[in-house]
């Protein structure tokens, strides 16, 4: 257990050192928050009531879909995974430590947004903070599980950049965080429903924490866990 916690803490440090996760979990989301927060609340002051949720969906999507997968590729598409086998450690340990480390990074970014948004942009804090943080935790976990599938299935960084964008951009554009989802054509609204961002966004809104907004996220999470399990089992069998 000691080794497990040391592994998670070490991974957290490695993520900071490897600029890619640091940039996608902290720098870009926080710059986006500072810029767009100002623009949104001055153009449409009513967005202050959903600014925190919108910026969090953007930050989590970026960190999970663009930040986490390269670290997984570095380990599972290379000889690094042999280090686990050579030491009699389960091959899934790398995934678990990277997942938990990325979870902590994203939670820190989200807490910074929650703390700064009311001060900088007069954004409204969620009415029920415990439910909000529970919804946030669930949304981060589900997004990271999709990031894990991307990182384990794609074998090179160039392909990953392209495919990650195919998940990231619709998550941002079609989830309702940039503009009301009702303004979208029906087919785009339907496509938006495929991605967990719109579900996570609704789950984090006031009075949004209900089974109606939760079931799809649970479904996505368990599907992703199964896919990751199958991929890791195949890797182990090789």
């Amino acid at each position, binding site marked *: 257990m*000691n*080794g497990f916690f*040391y*592994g998670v803490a*070490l991974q957290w*440090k*490695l993520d900071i*050192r*490897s600029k890619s996760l640091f940039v996608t979990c902290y720098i870009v989301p926080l710059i986006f928050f500072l810029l767009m927060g100002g623009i949104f609340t001055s153009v449409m002051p009513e967005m202050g009531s959903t600014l925190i949720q919108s910026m969090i969906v953007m930050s989590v999507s970026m960190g999970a879909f663009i930040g986490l997968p390269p670290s997984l590729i*570095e*380990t599972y598409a*290379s*000889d*690094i995974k*042999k*280090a686990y*086998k*050579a*030491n*009699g*450690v389960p091959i899934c340990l790398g995934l678990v430590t990277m997942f938990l480390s990325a979870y902590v990074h994203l939670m820190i970014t989200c807490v910074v947004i929650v703390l700064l948004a009311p001060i900088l942009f007069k954004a409204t804090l969620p009415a029920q903070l415990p439910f909000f943080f529970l919804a946030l935790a669930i949304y981060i976990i589900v997004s990271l599980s999709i990031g894990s599938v991307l990182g384990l299935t794609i074998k090179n960084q160039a392909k990953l950049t392209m495919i990650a964008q195919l998940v990231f951009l619709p998550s941002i554009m079609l989830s309702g965080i940039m503009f009301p989802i009702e303004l979208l054509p029906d087919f785009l609204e339907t496509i938006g429903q495929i991605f967990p961002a719109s579900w996570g966004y609704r789950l984090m809104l006031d009075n949004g924490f209900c089974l109606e907004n939760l079931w799809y996220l649970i479904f996505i999470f368990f599907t992703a866990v199964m896919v990751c399990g199958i991929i890791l089992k195949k890797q182990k*069998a*090789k």
Partner: protein
Amino acid sequence: MMNRAIQVCGLKKSYDSNIVLNGLDFEIEKGETFALLGVNGAGKTTALECIEGLKKYDSGTITVNGKMGIQLQSSSLPAHIKPMEAVRLFAKWNRAKIDFTMLNALGIQEIEKKQYIQLSTGQKRRLHLALALIGNPDIIFLDEPTAGLDTLSRVSLHEQIRKRRSQGKTIVLASHDMAEVENLCDRIAILNNGNIAFCGTATELTDEIGEKYFIHIKTRQGNSTFETDNIEDTLVLLLNDLKQKEIHILDIKVDRGTLEQHFIEIARSKTE
């Protein structure tokens, strides 16, 4: 079986239609230093990885008696990890205490502030050896431990291997360096086309291929290489000849040939 550290019977492994190991059979005694030799692509690493449990094999049996320590090849650690962080992580995984004397001897503490990506080839290999030794294993696997190293690093690594050998550890190393293997190992197995072309001591190998030396002479006229089984007589003859012709020698080197040259000999003797 009690005195055997490793027993390999009929080990077969192929990648699609490419047969890499075609029924290997060998045994390694406890406390023995054993080398798997072969040119690139001969199947050394595949054989080692099958024994280490890192790779699945198609058929055959492998029995390993003892705790294994595996020196992984370069690029098997995250780019930004620092040497001491890797050491601590591996020590925790193996529930072992860190042996600072060993780390000092391998110069790991000197490089503790660097990240893995910033280490030279030699430093990486020293780190991988340190990681392999962390759990105080009974059997140590080394894959091309000194490839790409400068002389100093090579000597220091050889010292460490000898030290473990004197402690009664079983050492299995894959290499394509004949001199290194002759220096360090009790027995050698030469892999060729997925089979063991030779298995025995260095003396037995010499007996099989005969005494063979290569004399490389560099003069202003160019470079020449001479093959001989009688080094003294040939050298005297060559030097006298060059002196008579008043050809000035710029450099002269004698070696026992590359592994490839020995392979050719072994392969030739097998087909004849």
